[in-house]
C-alpha cells in the first residue's frame, strides 16, 4: 500500500513546476487568499466608513460617500470631534463610564474569587448543588430581575438622586453589575482554581499557612492569567453595556455613561450624522485600546468560558 501512496500525485509542494497539478495548486492558493482577504476587507468596511466619515467636513459627508475621500484631493478635519465634544456631554459620559466600570469590575471579581476558592477547595454542605445552581443562573435573562430590584431600590431610597450628594450615585448600578457578573466570574474562576495542583495546598497546610496566606500568596498569584482575562471581559462588558445603565442610572446628563449619551445622541441628532460618527468613534477609543493591547487575555478568557471540559 505504501508504494501506491508514494506514487499518488502529491500536493502542490511536491509536484513538478508548471505541471497541471502545480498550476491547480497555485490557483487553489490564489483563490484561498482572495477569499480570505475579501472577507476581511468586507468586515472592516463598516468600521472604516465610520472612522473616515468622522474626519470629513459636513458638506462633503452629505454630498458624497465616504469612499470618495480615499482619492485626492484629501479634505479631512477635526471639526466634528471638537463640535460634538463641546456641545454634548460626552466628556462627562467618559468620566461616568469609568466611575461605573472600575468598581463594577473590581467588586464582582473579588467576591467571585472568594466564592470560587470556597467552591474549589473547601467542603461545605450542598456545595455541588449550589454550584450547579450558579451554572443554571448563567442563562437567566437579566430582564427577570429589573422590576423587583428597581422597586426595592426605590422603596429603600437607594436611588441616583438620593445618593448623589454623597458622591455615591453609582452605587445601585455597581451592586446590580456585581449581581449580574458573579455567576460567570464564579464559574470561570472555580474551574481555574480547581485545576491548581492539590499538592500545593497540602504542603502549605503542613507548613501551617493560614487560609488567607494560601489565598493571597498561592491561589491569586497563580491565577493571574484567568484573573486578567476576567477583568478585561467584565470591564468591556460594563463599558459597553446599555441596558443595565438605562435601568439603574438613567439618561440624566450628570450620570449617564458614554453608551447612554451616545444612544441619546442617535435619537436627538437624526440627520446630524457628521457629529454622530465622531461621537461613536470617541466611545470606541477605550474598548479598542484595551482590546488591541490585551487581546491575548481577552481571547483566552473567551476560550476558558466556553470550551471548558
Amino acid at each position, binding site marked *: 500500500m505504501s508504494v501506491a501512496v508514494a506514487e499518488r500525485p502529491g500536493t502542490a509542494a511536491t509536484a513538478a513546476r508548471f505541471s497541471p497539478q502545480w498550476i491547480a495548486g497555485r490557483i487553489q492558493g490564489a483563490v484561498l487568499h482572495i477569499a480570505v482577504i475579501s472577507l476581511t476587507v468586507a468586515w472592516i468596511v463598516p468600521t472604516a466608513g465610520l472612522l473616515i466619515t468622522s474626519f470629513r467636513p459636513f458638506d462633503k459627508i452629505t454630498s458624497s460617500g465616504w469612499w470618495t475621500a480615499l482619492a485626492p484631493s484629501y479634505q479631512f478635519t477635526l471639526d466634528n470631534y471638537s463640535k460634538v465634544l463641546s456641545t454634548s456631554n460626552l466628556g462627562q459620559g467618559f468620566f461616568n463610564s469609568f466611575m461605573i466600570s472600575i468598581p463594577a469590575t473590581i467588586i464582582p471579581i473579588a467576591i467571585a474569587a472568594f466564592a470560587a476558592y470556597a467552591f474549589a477547595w473547601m467542603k461545605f454542605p450542598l456545595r455541588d448543588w449550589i454550584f450547579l445552581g450558579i451554572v443554571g*443562573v448563567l442563562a437567566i435573562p437579566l430582564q427577570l430581575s429589573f422590576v423587583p430590584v428597581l422597586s426595592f431600590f426605590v422603596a429603600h431610597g437607594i436611588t441616583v438622586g438620593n445618593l448623589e450628594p454623597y458622591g455615591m450615585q453609582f452605587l445601585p448600578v455597581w451592586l446590580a453589575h456585581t449581581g449580574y457578573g458573579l455567576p460567570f466570574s464564579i464559574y470561570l474562576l472555580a474551574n481555574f482554581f480547581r485545576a491548581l495542583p492539590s499538592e500545593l495546598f497540602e504542603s502549605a497546610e503542613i507548613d501551617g499557612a493560614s487560609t488567607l496566606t494560601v489565598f493571597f500568596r498561592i491561589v491569586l498569584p497563580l491565577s493571574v492569567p484567568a484573573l486578567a482575562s476576567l477583568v478585561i471581559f467584565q470591564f468591556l462588558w460594563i463599558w459597553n453595556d446599555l441596558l443595565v445603565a438605562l435601568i439603574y442610572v438613567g439618561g440624566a446628563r450628570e450620570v449617564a455613561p458614554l453608551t447612554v449619551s451616545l444612544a441619546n445622541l442617535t435619537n436627538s441628532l437624526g440627520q446630524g450624522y457628521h457629529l454622530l460618527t465622531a461621537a461613536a468613534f470617541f466611545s470606541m477609543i477605550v474598548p479598542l485600546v484595551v482590546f488591541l493591547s490585551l487581546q491575548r487575555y481577552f481571547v483566552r478568557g473567551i476560550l476558558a468560558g466556553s470550551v471548558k471540559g
Partner: protein
Amino acid sequence: MDWGTFVTHQLPIMLVVIVGVPAVLVGYIVGTELLVRRLPDALRPRVRPWIWVGPALLFVFGFLVLPAFGTFKASLENNSGQFVGLHNYQVQLSDFPSGGSWIAIRNNAYWLVLYTLFVLAFGLLLAVLFDRVKYETIVKSLIFMPMAISSVALGVIWKFMYWYQPPGVTQTGTLNAFLGLFHQDPRIWIQDPSIDNFAIIGAAVWGITGFAMVILSAALKGIPGELLEAARVDGAGEITIFRRVIFPLMMPTVVVVGTTLVIFALKAFDVVYVMTGGNFETDVLANRMYKLLFFSGNNGAAAAVAMILLAAVVPVLIFNLRQFRAVEARR
C-alpha cells in the same frame, strides 16, 4: 464638562472609590477570617466556607434568584398590586399574529434562527479559511475587533451603512451606493418591515462572528494534524475532509457556541434600541419589556414579557445543566 469641578470634585471621588472599594473587599475577608480564628477548632471548618462564599450567594440570590420569583409574582398582578391571575399574559398573547407581544415573539424567533445559524456558518467558514493562511493572526484580530465595541456604536456604524437617500440623489450610505452599482433602486433598509429585521440581524451577526470564529478556530487547532494528513493520503478531497472529519470533531464546540448564541439572540436589545427603537415591526421581547416598564409604567405587563423570555430560555438552561453534569461526571 467643566474641568474646574472635575478636578476639585469628581477626581477626588474617583480616587476614593478606586482605593476604597478594594480596601472594603480585602477588609471584609481579612476581618472575618480573624474572627473565624477565634472560634473553637471544631467549629472553624464549618463556618469558614460560608464566610468566603457568603457575599457571592447573597448577591446572586438577591439580584437574580429572588427577583425572578418577584417578577413571577408581579406578572400576576396589576399596577396597584392586586392579583389578576393570568390577565397580563392574556393581554400579551392576544390577537395573534400582530397584537400583544406577537411581533416581538416572531422577531425573537427570527433572531434565534437566523442570528445563530449565520454566526455559526460565518464563524466556521472564517475559522477554516484563516487556518490555511500565514497571516492568520492579523485577519483574525480584524474580524474579532467588533467584539470590543459597544452595541450602541455598532448600531451607529450600521445605521450609517444602511443610510438611505431617495432615488436620484447621490447615495452616501455604503449599501445603497453598492446597489446603485448594479442599477438597483436604493432600499429603506431599516424602516421597511419586509427587510428591516434581517438588516438589523445582519448588523448583529457582523458584531459577534469574531466570537464564534475564535472559539471554533481553537477547536479546529485541537484536531490532530495526523488525522487530516491520513485522510488526505487516503485521497479525500478538502470538502470531504471538512464534512467527514473536521465537522464531526468540532460538533461539541459548535453546540456550546450555538447555545451561547441562542441566549444572546433571546436577550437581543441594544442593537434594536439604537437602530429602530423597536419601530417598523422590529420589536424584540427585551425592548418591549423595557418600553412597558419605563414608558408605559406597566410593571405587570413588563413582568409578563420577562416571564415569556424566561420560558424561551428554560430549554437552553436545562441543556446547559445537563452538559455541565456530564462534564463533571467525566472529571
